[in-house]
């Protein structure tokens, strides 16, 4: 089968930074964070209080009441971002295309908000039953399935759940399917809604959530800040996108994966480094051609230090000429949606020639001695960029993008 170049022709996003692409880019390009006190859950007795929540969100503005019965918050976000991306692309899903199109999404915790509420009824309120729609609301593939149903897409549709790498694994798989000609178009990305009492307590127990804000690569970083939302991309073969006169935001040129095969939560140097090397190899580019890395950059002590060393390992002296920023400092860590939000940020950075900063940066850490674009966005011409995702479980996924 011929190999196609893969164009990004539509992007949709909803996050703490806003409910569409324009609002998100406005915040990202100005270094404005969407982190504040969590309102969805009573966190008054928690050790942390901040999150990156989607605010001023009214589900009924997007969905009919009977549709909402089937939709957990994470699936709502998936559909909203997919609708935006598809409308943005101008792609018409003809009966012929519908069977040759893929939907591949990422989610780490699926509809756990619904599960949490259902189990509160069961265990705490002594209800003898849970809602019959709890299973279809909770399943991690609900977002992909609802996108498939809404648009009548009946080609390959599935969800990848690899914790914080879910969306990058999903986008990477969709990229490969379009590149190889297995499908003629794809909607791909990730969605997440992690704000429930049960899950926040579990994160609190892990002791990796910051008691204040998220300061990736800063000396005084204290951990990650959880976020929610969704990002979706429309991918098409470049020649078809050009032929129909589509707006082309950028190109995906490489995808690399690896497993640490080490520890369930502590990162290794080898895993992230080999995923970056694999992405460069898949893209057929040299490390020196990369100008920007959207880092995994969670703001934990372990990740940021290890990621810095892994970048130095892969890029050696070129690491000092690279711009590296973590947009999680603004949209929070959206777990299974992280790679999707960061893909949007990376593509927009190349297209708009502005590198979004690492916000909330206070002081350099010798262990994170990269140019992390502290606090101020920076004008830059970027030819190639990487976007890193490294998950608990040691699963790493890196995407390579090219400016068009």
């Amino acid at each position, binding site marked *: 089968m011929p190999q196609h170049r893969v164009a990004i022709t539509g992007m949709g996003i909803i996050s703490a930074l806003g409910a569409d692409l324009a609002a998100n880019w406005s915040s990202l390009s100005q270094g404005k964070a969407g982190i504040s006190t969590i309102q969805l859950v009573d966190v008054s007795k928690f*050790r942390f209080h901040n999150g990156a929540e989607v605010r001023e969100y009214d589900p009924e503005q997007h969905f009919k009441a009977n549709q909402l019965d089937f939709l957990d918050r994470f699936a709502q976000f998936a559909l909203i971002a997919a609708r935006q991306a598809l409308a943005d692309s101008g792609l018409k899903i003809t009966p012929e295309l519908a069977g040759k199109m893929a939907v591949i999404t990422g989610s780490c915790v699926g509809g756990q908000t619904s599960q949490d509420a259902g189990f509160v009824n069961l265990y705490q309120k002594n209800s003898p039953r849970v809602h019959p729609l709890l299973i279809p609301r909770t399943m991690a593939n609900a977002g992909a399935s609802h996108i498939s149903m809404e648009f009548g897409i009946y080609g390959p549709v599935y969800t990848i759940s690899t914790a914080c790498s879910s969306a990058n694994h999903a986008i990477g798989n969709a990229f490969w399917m379009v590149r190889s000609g297995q499908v003629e178009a794809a909607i791909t990305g990730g969605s997440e809604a992690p704000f429930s009492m049960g899950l926040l307590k579990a994160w609190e*127990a*892990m*002791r990796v*959530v910051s*008691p204040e804000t998220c300061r990736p690569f800063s000396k005084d970083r*204290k*951990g990650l800040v959880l976020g929610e939302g969704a990002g979706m991309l429309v991918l098409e073969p470049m020649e078809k996108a050009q032929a129909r006169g589509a707006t082309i935001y950028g190109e995906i040129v490489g995808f690399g994966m690896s497993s640490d095969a080490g*520890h*369930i*939560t*502590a990162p290794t140097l080898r895993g992230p480094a080999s995923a970056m090397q694999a992405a460069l190899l898949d893209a057929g580019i040299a490390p020196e051609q990369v100008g920007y890395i959207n880092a995994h950059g969670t703001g934990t*002590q*372990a990740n940021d230090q290890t990621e810095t060393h892994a970048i130095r390992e892969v890029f050696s002296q070129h690491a000092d000429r690279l711009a590296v920023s973590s947009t999680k400092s603004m949209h929070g860590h959206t777990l299974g949606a992280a790679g999707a939000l960061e893909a949007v940020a990376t593509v927009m950075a190349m297209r708009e020639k502005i590198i979004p900063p690492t916000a909330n940066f206070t002081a350099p850490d010798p262990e994170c001695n990269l140019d992390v674009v502290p606090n101020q966005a920076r004008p830059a011409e970027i030819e190639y960029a990487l976007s890193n995702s490294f998950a608990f479980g040691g699963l790493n996924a890196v995407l390579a993008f090219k400016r068009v």
Partner: protein
Amino acid sequence: MPDNITEKVLELIADTKRIPREQVSPTSTFEELGLDSLDAINLVFEVESAFNISVPDSVANSMTSVPQVVEELRKILATQPTSQQTPPE
């Protein structure tokens, strides 16, 4: 002889790491015991549950030895009401 608090901590470490109690000494470091960062967080969870206390993240994430756990635990217990100072059975 270790006091009650130390004794309980040693017991919790042995249970958490599933190693014989005799292998855990009041002066052991986590490294000597083979406790990694996640084991340490698990241990703090067991200590919190056993003593009905709450350990701040900054303290929990900085613990690297048995004497340090015991010292931090004593500090926290000293701030608790008297009724809670008795170590558990």
